[in-house]
């Protein structure tokens, strides 16, 4: 598939490949230029790790090919394959996989040594990377004596010390607690910015993807469902999964003039959206206004009844699950919950201003 599109750019990574692992099949085609951080977002089992394994040479592709900086590293049709040990890819594993019997310095020196440097040269390369990632004080420690954030940095230093042309990070922050994650995230952003080659960062945390990535690729069930900038993905999610991640209500429907008939029931009126046929409509939960009476004088064009089915406390507000035509998520203040006595089973009226409805074609970003 897409043999033509892969490997034309020269610099960077070009992938047009099918990867099979167990009974699972992943089919993707995309390119990552040098210096770009591509966030790979997707639910569990979407094929994110399978993709990284194929790029690292741990799982050969079943079809298509992968080129890195113009060089074919895996091609199922010709049989060309550069195995993991000779592929210039740095891989930061989700569980880091620091060698428990080696010190931090020996872990970081491992790749330069394995790639042919002498002992002294490997040691000085390790010293350089330990310094770059502020790990010099930990050089003599064993991995078991590191905190989560430190282990993450050592794993990154170890991958970078091999001077890879491609950097792969598999959920680099998921093993950390929430507090550490924020600190490490800021550091990681800096180090990724310094990396010259293409970089793929797998995550299922949308915030991490938004903060760290220049571009997002959303995988679901082994295929790409969206490819775009973080802003595009956050504003106009292509699937329910992405919408949920970025916290939006998302409706599929058909546009006919200003009216959009929704697949989930109900309809919206959005003057001047300019789309036709199959569209998606996204709306922020905070833009959904909740009242106990049908609103009388309001500028909102879209009003419908609904029943409260659930309440979830968020940081500074309460998220309501609402069943209606269409169903919706709405964010209200805790005070509003008390004043309107919102509880499961309560009948309410929802309204949304047309200007808060984002209407876009369904195949956006692909």
């Amino acid at each position, binding site marked *: 598939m897409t043999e033509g599109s892969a490997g034309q750019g020269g610099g960077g990574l070009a992938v047009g490949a099918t990867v099979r692992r167990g009974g699972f099949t992943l089919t993707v085609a995309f390119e990552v230029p040098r210096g770009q951080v591509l966030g790979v977002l997707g639910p569990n089992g979407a094929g994110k790790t399978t993709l990284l394994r194929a790029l690292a040479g741990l799982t050969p592709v079943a079809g298509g090919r992968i080129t890195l900086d113009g060089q074919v590293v895996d091609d199922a049709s010709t049989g060309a394959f550069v195995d*993991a*040990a000779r*592929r210039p890819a740095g*891989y930061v*594993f989700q*569980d880091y*996989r620091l*060698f428990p019997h080696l010190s931090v310095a020996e872990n970081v020196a491992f*790749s330069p040594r*394995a790639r042919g440097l002498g002992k002294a040269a490997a040691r000085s390369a390790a010293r350089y990377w330990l310094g770059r990632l502020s790990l010099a004080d930990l050089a003599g420690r064993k991995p078991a004596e590191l905190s989560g954030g430190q282990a993450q940095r050592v794993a990154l230093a170890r991958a970078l010390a091999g001077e890879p042309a491609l950097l792969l990070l598999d959920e680099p922050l998921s093993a950390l607690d929430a507090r550490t994650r924020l600190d490490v995230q800021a550091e990681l952003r800096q180090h990724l910015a310094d990396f010259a080659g293409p970089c793929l960062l797998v995550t299922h945390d949308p915030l991490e993807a938004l903060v760290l990535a220049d571009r997002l690729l959303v995988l679901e069930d082994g295929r790409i469902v969206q490819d775009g900038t973080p802003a595009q993905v956050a504003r106009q999610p292509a699937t329910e999964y992405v919408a949920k991640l970025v916290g939006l209500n998302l409706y599929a429907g058909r546009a006919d003039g200003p009216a959009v008939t929704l697949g989930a029931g109900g309809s919206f009126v959005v003057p001047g959206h300019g789309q036709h046929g199959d569209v998606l409509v996204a709306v922020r939960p905070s833009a959904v206004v909740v009242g106990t009476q049908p609103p009388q004088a309001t500028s909102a064009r879209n009003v419908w009844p609904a029943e409260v089915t659930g309440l979830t406390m968020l940081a500074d507000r309460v998220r309501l699950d609402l069943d209606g035509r269409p169903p919706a998520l709405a964010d209200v203040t805790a005070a509003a919950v008390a004043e309107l006595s919102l509880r499961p089973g309560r009948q309410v009226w929802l309204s949304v201003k047309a200007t808060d409805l984002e209407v876009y074609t369904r195949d956006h970003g692909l």
Partner: protein
Amino acid sequence: MQVDIIGEPRPSRLSSRDRARRAARGGGSPRSVPAPLLVPAIIAVAFLVLPLAGLVVRAPWGRLGSALSGSDAAQALVLSLWTATVATGVCVVIGVPLAWVLARTTFPGQRLLRALVTLPLVLPPVVGGVALLLAFGRTGFIGRYLDSWFGLTIPFSPLAVVMAETFVAMPFLIITVEGALRSADQGFEEAAATLGASRMTVFRRITVPLIAPSLGAGAVLCWARALGEFGATITFAGSFPGRTETMPIAVYYALENDPDAAIALSLVLLLVSVVVLASLRDRWLRGAVQ
């Protein structure tokens, strides 16, 4: 009608020590062992420990020195120690690669090979000795050529002792190491590969260090088995004092002429075994179990 299944919750006594112990173990079960488990357990301990205690009690403590010097004890002990050590070394050098092949690759006939390799575990050692003799004896199908081409005669030499011990002890090492390789986290090996390490470098710098505790345990088991080897050794190597008469063989012959010397020799073997086990147990056996 209601049946009272539980009955009155009549309290039993729980001392403050037991309370503290149970609390420390996070609740858990009482410490006392049910009698159907306790009695067989005590019988098992008695069966294993009493004969050894008998050995210690019956030992001619007064004339231990003369009993030992009267026999060829020192010679036999030295021979036993060095042959067992060399045999263990051979087992490590050729057994670890075989364990790796069995654990990390698949090929036709692998199950059969695994069964063959572990056969010496269940084979009577005497049969092993006969087999070695038929293969490497002066007229054996291999020994014949060793003899006529190189003038090398293996049977009834210290080399034969080492070979007999290696034959019998190697499965202990292979089984232990293969198990460790199977349960080892191959994620580390993958990580090493992505860092540019060749398969041999991965084996040397990652695989072997990570299974070191099991390798140590396997080597100790192997050494202990080699030290105690009797049947295959006496069949293939004979019992020439100072050349092929190892400690177990010396004990066996001493028992006929000089029971006191046999006991003294047994004590020495017991002591060596206990010292080795005790000194290695904490470091290696425990690591292998966990």
